[in-house]
């Protein structure tokens, strides 16, 4: 471990982490740009870099972007990332009262604590979990992919119905079968394109679905919403941290880490769940919505807690915890480092420095947040007309860079165009990318499992690990399916109170 620590403390490594983290804070601070977009865009560029340095750069961006979204949320009521929406609810009212300094301080300390805690959990549990993966054979790998795909059910929300989320996941898996069939060596669905022989690369898909779509949407906006800059000009006083705030930070850090571990659950959900729980247990309930630092503490510790948590299943089992982790997984794969036990044995000299670098990244954004955060809020004022061409340039370059293939750029544009239509129709793009990533793992595990079982599917239920995994899959599926069923039932038969409320709304004033 000492050699890994020393690898991180090299000047070049430190510089890379600082660049990544500061860039991440800046990207997270720009509304419309997200951590997934930034990591996805930069993964191809890390291909030719030293693997450890490339991963440190991306880790820094992930940590920085997750925190960066809170700065404009607090100062301008404009969350830089969706995960900072809960922060804006409490942060902006505080800024208007002249308490932006306190809000920013609470936000950065909560983010730092949540981030460090989750990376510590990653460091502690990932190698143990990865060792278990040594006992996995093809049937277990198939079940592992199923477990990841079960996350699709929890991706479904008010914007994408359960069935549409499942269709999107299946579509991703179908796209993933294009290319050479590993079992027979024959080509499938390549339509004569040589570029498709190795299948559809998921990096152009990721860049198209998570970066280019956002740019297309921004470019097509007739007018952007006006940002309230009054808090930036208000005199802000410096205050100490409120008493008892660490209870809420601890709550957020724990919640965020656990939620991060679950496949498909992202930082936005972590932030909102932490925020809602803090609201329930707070002694100052009446202050929520009017500027309560406890809400900021829980939400920020929650979304940053997701960082380490999401990497636990990603690095150990190859199941991305969320879309940023999926992009990061791409960085490991293009370096030939397949997630699993090998990352902690054969590639330990790269994996451990990457994990340790995230402690430093958290420290870097802590310093940035405590010193220059108010100035960084102005990043949110960059007009989309400038942001769009810059990001589009990196999107094209990133898609091309991986294979030096113009075909990948066209794929990226196609994914962006079709993905936008799917998004507008309520399909989940996260589910699509999850299907695209886990499809090959599922197919490989299924096909090899069927050979092992001599054509009998019982092979997928035989081993003890397989039985435990089936239980876990059911446990992952039941709660979201139950709440979905409950929602559907409520839509069909609204409760009497709701009908009464509706009646009272319809009454003339």
């Amino acid at each position, binding site marked *: 471990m000492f050699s890994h620590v020393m690898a991180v403390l090299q000047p070049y490594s430190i510089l890379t982490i600082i660049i990544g983290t500061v860039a991440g804070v800046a990207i997270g601070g720009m509304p419309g740009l997200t951590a997934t977009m930034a990591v996805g865009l930069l993964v191809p560029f890390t291909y030719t870099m030293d693997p450890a340095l490339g991963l440190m750069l991306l880790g820094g961006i992930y940590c920085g972007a997750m925190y960066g979204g809170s700065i404009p949320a607090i100062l301008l009521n404009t969350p830089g990332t969706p995960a900072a929406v809960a922060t804006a609810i409490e942060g902006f009212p505080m800024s208007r009262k002249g308490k932006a300094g306190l809000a920013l301080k609470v936000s950065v300390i909560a983010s730092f604590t949540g981030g460090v805690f989750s990376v510590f959990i990653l460091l502690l549990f990932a190698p143990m979990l990865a060792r278990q993966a040594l006992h996995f054979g093809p049937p277990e790998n198939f079940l592992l992919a199923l477990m990841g795909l079960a996350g699709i059910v929890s991706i479904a929300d008010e914007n994408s119905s359960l069935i549409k989320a499942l269709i999107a996941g299946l579509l991703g898996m179908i796209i993933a079968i294009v290319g050479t069939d590993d079992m*027979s060596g*024959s080509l499938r669905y390549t339509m004569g394109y040589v570029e498709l022989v190795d299948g559809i690369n998921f990096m152009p898909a990721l860049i198209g679905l998570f970066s280019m779509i956002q740019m*297309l949407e921004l*470019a*097509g906006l007739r007018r952007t919403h006006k940002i309230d800059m009054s808090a930036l000009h208000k005199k802000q006083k410096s205050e100490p941290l409120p008493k008892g705030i660490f209870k809420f930070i601890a709550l957020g850090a724990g919640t965020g880490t656990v939620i991060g571990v679950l496949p498909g659950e992202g930082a936005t959900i972590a932030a909102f769940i932490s925020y809602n729980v803090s609201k329930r247990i707070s002694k100052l309930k009446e202050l929520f919505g009017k500027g309560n630092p406890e809400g900021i503490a829980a939400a920020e510790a929650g979304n940053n807690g997701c960082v380490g948590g999401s990497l636990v299943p990603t690095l150990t089992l190859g199941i991305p915890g969320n879309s940023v982790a999926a992009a990061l997984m791409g960085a490991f794969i293009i370096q030939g480092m397949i997630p699993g036990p090998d990352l902690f044995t054969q590639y330990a000299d790269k994996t451990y420095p990457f994990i340790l670098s995230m402690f430093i990244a958290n420290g870097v954004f802590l310093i940035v947040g405590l010193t220059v955060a108010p100035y960084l809020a102005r990043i949110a004022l960059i007009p989309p007309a400038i942001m769009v061409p*810059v990001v*589009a340039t990196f999107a094209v370059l990133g898609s091309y860079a991986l294979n030096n293939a113009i075909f990948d750029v066209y794929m990226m544009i196609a994914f962006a165009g079709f993905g936008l*239509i799917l998004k507008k129709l309520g399909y989940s793009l996260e589910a699509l990318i999850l299907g695209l990533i886990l499809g090959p793992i599922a197919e490989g595990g299924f*096909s090899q499992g069927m*050979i092992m079982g001599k054509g009998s599917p019982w092979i997928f239920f035989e081993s003890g690990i397989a039985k435990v995994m089936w239980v876990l899959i059911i446990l992952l599926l039941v709660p979201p399916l139950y709440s979905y069923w409950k929602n559907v039932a409520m839509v069909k038969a609204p409760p009497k109170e709701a009908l009464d409320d509706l009646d009272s709304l319809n009454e003339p004033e």
Partner: protein
Amino acid sequence: MARRHLDRVILLGFAVLAVLLYISTASYPGIAQKTSALYVRFLAVSMGILSIVQLGFSMFRDHDTGRLELTDHWPRFIGLLAALIVFALVFEHAGFYLSAAVFIPVMALLLGYRNYPVIALTTAGVLGFVYLVFEKLLSVNLPGMAL
């Protein structure tokens, strides 16, 4: 086009895709029949069933008559897509720096931005950043570059 109509067209497309996918597995050779083909059939059947169920929901429950608004500003939207394709075509031959030096200002102007010094500074900043950080500092081998 109305949102629900496009939704139905897409769902119908998915159902057709599922059928074609299922039929195509008949041509899988040898051992693939008992392995990959089964997997692909499972995907096809699942996709087909879910698409039809969703199509049913859409036909009988979706009464939304609103149009699908892909964008508020079609010229800019199409302009960006077209510029992206041209950029991709050109930069393989002209190199990254030259093509990006044209693409960024043209796109900024197309999107209605008229602050020329900021456009020039941004373009120079991006090219300088890519050169210094990616090429020099991080030793990233950027493709098709001729500076």
